[in-house]
């Protein structure tokens, strides 16, 4: 156990944000793989962004076997498991939108190339394309210390987690230095490097928001001098 709390002398508190999505239909649906390929070539970036990243805000009861809508649709509706696996591995946070679009198009085109019949779905299982627009809220919450952040985690809304992790990765990823807001702030205030590294290393892509919260709580519990702070907060 180390002494992360004593080392942190924050100059700026962590500003807690929340968010909300305005979801918009685009009036376009895919019922087979060729439809999806055509759509991926033409739809606005906001549609790709929604189905590859912001879908994490939608509630899925199943574990995040596939972390984006496209992979999930190929698995569930088209029954194309190989392609679903490939799409599931595409990391949308590591490259600009144009590159991401190119990767997706390439994967699907390659898949179609080798097939005699185009995979299709039953009526009712179509992929209805949508885009979204983010509305960020400054909650007014300011967390001055590492302990305060740790204490806030169990009660933080899942949308706040999304904003500070998924959206933060998207924002920072465009600059080539992908990071969540928590680890960026911890680094800035001089927190224990092992804690920063652990938070940053959480593979959020395969976690739903509640699982993600638990991962962070576990990380803080290991690195806080007084982990009972967290126990009290979760009680």
């Amino acid at each position, binding site marked *: 156990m180390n002494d992360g709390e004593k080392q942190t002398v924050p100059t700026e508190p962590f500003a807690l944000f*929340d968010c*909300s999505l*305005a*979801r*918009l*239909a*685009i*009036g*376009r*649906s895919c019922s087979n793989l060729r439809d999806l390929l055509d759509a991926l070539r033409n739809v606005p970036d906001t549609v790709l962004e929604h189905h590859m990243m912001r879908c994490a805000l939608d*509630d899925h*009861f199943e574990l995040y076997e596939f972390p984006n809508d496209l992979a999930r649709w190929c698995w569930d509706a088209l029954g194309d498991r190989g392609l679903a696996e490939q799409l599931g591995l595409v990391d949308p946070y590591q490259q600009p939108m144009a590159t991401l679009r190119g990767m997706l198009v390439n994967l699907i085109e390659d898949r179609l190339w080798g097939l005699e019949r185009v995979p299709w779905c039953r009526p*009712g299982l*179509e992929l*209805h*394309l*949508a885009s979204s*627009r*983010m*509305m*960020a*809220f*400054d*909650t*007014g919450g300011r967390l001055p210390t590492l302990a305060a952040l740790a204490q806030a985690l169990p009660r933080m*809304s899942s949308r706040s987690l999304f904003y500070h992790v998924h959206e933060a990765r998207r924002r920072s990823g465009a600059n080539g230095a992908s990071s969540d807001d928590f680890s960026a702030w911890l680094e800035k205030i001089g927190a224990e490097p092992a804690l920063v590294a652990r938070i940053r290393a959480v593979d959020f892509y395969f976690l739903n928001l509640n699982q993600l919260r638990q991962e962070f709580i576990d990380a803080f519990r290991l690195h806080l001098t007084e982990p009972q702070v967290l126990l009290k907060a979760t009680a």
Partner: protein
Amino acid sequence: MMPTLDARPAKRRKRAHKGIHMKLLDRYEEIVGPSEVQRLRQLAARLHGKRIVHVNSTRLGGGVAEILVWMIPLMEELGLSARWEVIEGNPDFYRVTKAFHNGLQGLPILLRNTDFDLHYQINQENAKRLNLEADVVFVHDPQPIYLPHFTPKGRVGRWVWRCHIDCSRPNRSVWKYLEKAIPDYQATLFSMAAFARPLPCPMFLVPPAIDPLSDKNCAIPEEERLETLRKHGIDPDRPLILQVSRFDRFKDPLGVIAAYRLVKPYHPGLQLVLAGGPASDDPEGAEVLREVMDRAGEDPDLRILLLPPDSHRAINALQRSALIVLQKSVKEGFGLTVTEALWKGKPVIGGACGGITLQVHDYHTGFLVHSPEGAAYRIRYLLRYADKRQRMGRIGHEFVREHFLLTRNLRDYLTTLLYLENPGEGILVA
């Protein structure tokens, strides 16, 4: 009437008891948490004083009216100036709009040119009669859809069409007629992406929601629940399955009866209640009710309740008494009765269509079915496994709290309004 069970924390009860004014939003805060209400206040602060008008076709009966009953006062409390206007029409008008409704949901219908003319003309009359002066007017469903066409320019800042109906595969003639009204709108709202059709304005996705504090959904005393059962001749000691909905073919009440009959030999004590009520804009209800009563026959365990539109507490009691709630629709805009049942901790067996698919998730909150046989199979399954019923009930309650309570719905409306005012990139609300 017995008093409602007061589930509020002691501090709040004490404040209310002392006569301290408790705002509506404070009461919802106890259910959804302070941050959710804070978000609403933050959004509304950017819209302070905006004049909002909602227009629909009935004040009583149906999901739209139920939503507007809570939405208007909440918008008011948040500092917007909100009003509710209702169009008027003759029985022939409602026959035509019911045909529109059926046609939008894909039923074959026959309409003459004079029917479209009548709809157009009644919209014109209502545009003259109604007070529509506002910054934003939300027009609900197809009945009043042509109001913008007949309203003088400048009287309304922005028009938004809120479509509660599944119009993914509409009748062509109906859609062609309604589509011509859309260029007067600056935005549309649909309950889910599958319902939207390509339109020349933004199409927001806004699922509806329930009011957890309304008579339909609040906690009720056990004595009141039992009294409701006694009043309707339902045995509280035997298993009850229930469908609450208008007597409408899309709700498939005959399919529910068929499912019940398939299960009855395995559970002789099983009771079925089909509870519905009339709505002033639904002229087909009486005809469907007759068909249902014919099919029900003389079975003493199958009760058909035609309840007045204000029977919210009775429906509440019935939903709380059921072991399983059905909504075996074959077309469904959203299905607020599903939300109500989930909120009361009941597993739901729902037709795999429309908004029901947003709410019912196999093995989590209930089961989606495609036939009376499918419904019967799942009823038998759930009657067999009490532990699974309870688990689904718990999950369903939390699922509704997260996604389908009025605060989320109101947030979506406020978000839409803000979006319309700031049609650029992302918005930061301080």
